[in-house]
């Protein structure tokens, strides 16, 4: 078993530990009624059992884990896309949803996905325009618009 294959099991074990410790100040029982900590402890216990079973099953070969790591180019593309969408989230309150969305699409297509400039600009304008028309004009969703667009 490769170390990477143990990640899901370790993750669930850590979650279980986190749930158990995070609810330590709550009561297990309120008289005859299960308290606020009852269900979390049940889940934490089950999570611990499932995590250990998964580890055991993988170690013994009962479970095969097909860990699909992308190629270097694929990983770079995914990382860049995630960085771009994070930058979109950061920029929304500063510039506004629609302008930031257009900038995001332009960046994604020209920089990350290496698309030609003219179709990239076109799709950025179309998508941002559609969002403005559908969400702001039609559905009246108050998207952040510090500069009015």
């Amino acid at each position, binding site marked *: 078993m490769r170390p990477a294959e143990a990640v899901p099991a370790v993750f669930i074990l850590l979650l279980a530990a986190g*749930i158990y410790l995070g609810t330590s100040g709550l009561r297990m*029982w309120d008289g*005859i009624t299960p308290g606020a900590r009852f269900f979390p402890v049940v889940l934490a216990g089950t999570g611990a059992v499932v995590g250990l079973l998964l580890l055991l099953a993988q170690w013994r070969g009962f479970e095969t884990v097909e860990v699909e790591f992308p190629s270097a180019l694929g990983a770079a593309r995914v990382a860049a896309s995630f960085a771009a969408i994070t930058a979109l*989230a950061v920029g929304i309150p500063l510039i506004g949803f629609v302008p930031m969305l257009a900038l995001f699409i332009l960046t994604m*297509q020209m920089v990350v996905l290496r698309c030609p400039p003219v179709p990239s600009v076109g799709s950025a304008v179309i998508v941002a325009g559609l*969002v403005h028309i559908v969400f702001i004009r039609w559905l009246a969703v108050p998207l952040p618009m510090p500069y009015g667009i």
Partner: protein
Amino acid sequence: MLDQLLIGFSTALLPHNLLFIFIGVLIGQVVGALPGLGPSAGMALLLPLTFGLEPVTAIMMLAGIMYGAQYGGTLTSVLIKVPGEASGVMTAVDGNAMARNGRAGAALAISAIGSFIAGIGAVTAVALLAPPLASFGLRFNAPEYFLLALLGILAIGSLGGSPIKSLAAALIGLMIALIGVDPLTGTPRLSFNQPILMTGIDFIPVVIGVFGIAEVLASLERIESVKPIKTRLRDMWLTMDDWRKCRFSIIRGGFIGLFVGIMPGAGASIASLLSYLTERKFSKNPEAFGHGAIDGVAAAESANNAASHGAAIPMLSLGIPGSASTAILLAALILHGIRPGPQLMSQESALVWGLIASMFIGNLFLLVLNLPLAPVFAALLRIPYVYLAPAILGISLVGAYAATLDMATVWMSLAFGVLGYAMIKFDVPRPPLVLALVLASLMETSLRQALLLSFGSPMIFVERPISAILLVAVLAAIVLPIIGAVRRRRGAPQPVGLGGDE
């Protein structure tokens, strides 16, 4: 039943509702045709848009996306051999083989007609079966609800893929639902004094992140340009020989799809595979399967559409979703202030029967869209995915923000996008997470109420007859996959160096 169905039609046929049924099936068709975006992601992205709609209109539209995607997935399966949905794998094999033999139109036509006939049959079954099942469900109390929710979560893992990993995914969903306040006492729980966590984790950022953002990120790893096979309207006429081969395939596929769809956890993927394999056994030319068998295509497509409708039966009658898509429908009901469960059919009969009627109408819309207009939708496949992916990512965040008008939801969507991407990479199924998130409140509340009723004694789950039967089913759902795994293990040749030697 008939008079209630007529009332449902009177609701569904209102111009406003007709428009949104059409919008829903059209979006479903497009979502199904686009690789990299499933019906669950499409429904998740559009869920925030439904807040301004009447609940019945919202549910009609979202349901249209759910079954419309089954029709749309055929296009990519047949024309570029990439299943638009997991349920389109067998269609991709035989349908694309037919397309390479110059019969793309026939493959698309039989898929549309088979899906329509099976879909209408399945909706009729929903109308016939849901009311008596709901009446039976009214006898349920807290112990039964807890075991039913538990069975739904266990079943989704036991019928396909790795049961342990499915259970792990479900546990993650249940743990996410713990954050916020205790549902019975109102005590803050796992919120760490953070205002953002005090109100709990909303369903929408989870499903947008885990399905929408994660799927697009995963699809960006490898971008391939594909050329869809051209198809023309006149190629879509079926011969008498085609009809003769397919008439019973459609009926068998419809029945198999319906029964599989009713079972929580089993979905359109299993239905289409079972139907395809069954049809191969009945076929006079089984050697043609895998090389362009039109009856194989008809069986698979009929089954997957019937299954997507059949999953509505446990959702409407018992409040237990049978698939990730119906879990999102259930969440939509809750978000619109409607309490799902057996009482839904009596308390919200206009909504339920309107939804059932809308499914008849939606299938008719889809037949019209898919027969003469299939070449138009096929043109969508020519749009390079590189132009669609950023738009889908951006609109995901718009949808997340629109849900709560709070940037915190946007950030949560991104975080769950990372989680969903990791789940894809480590081959951990995502539907159990969503299912568990929807059922978590019901599970916890029912469990604690059951123990309150019994003064803390777990024997309540055994003493009540229906509860005892459900308990046996739960135990079977736990034990049977283990027995199956052990048997497979004993039957497989032993590899050298067993026991973790690397």
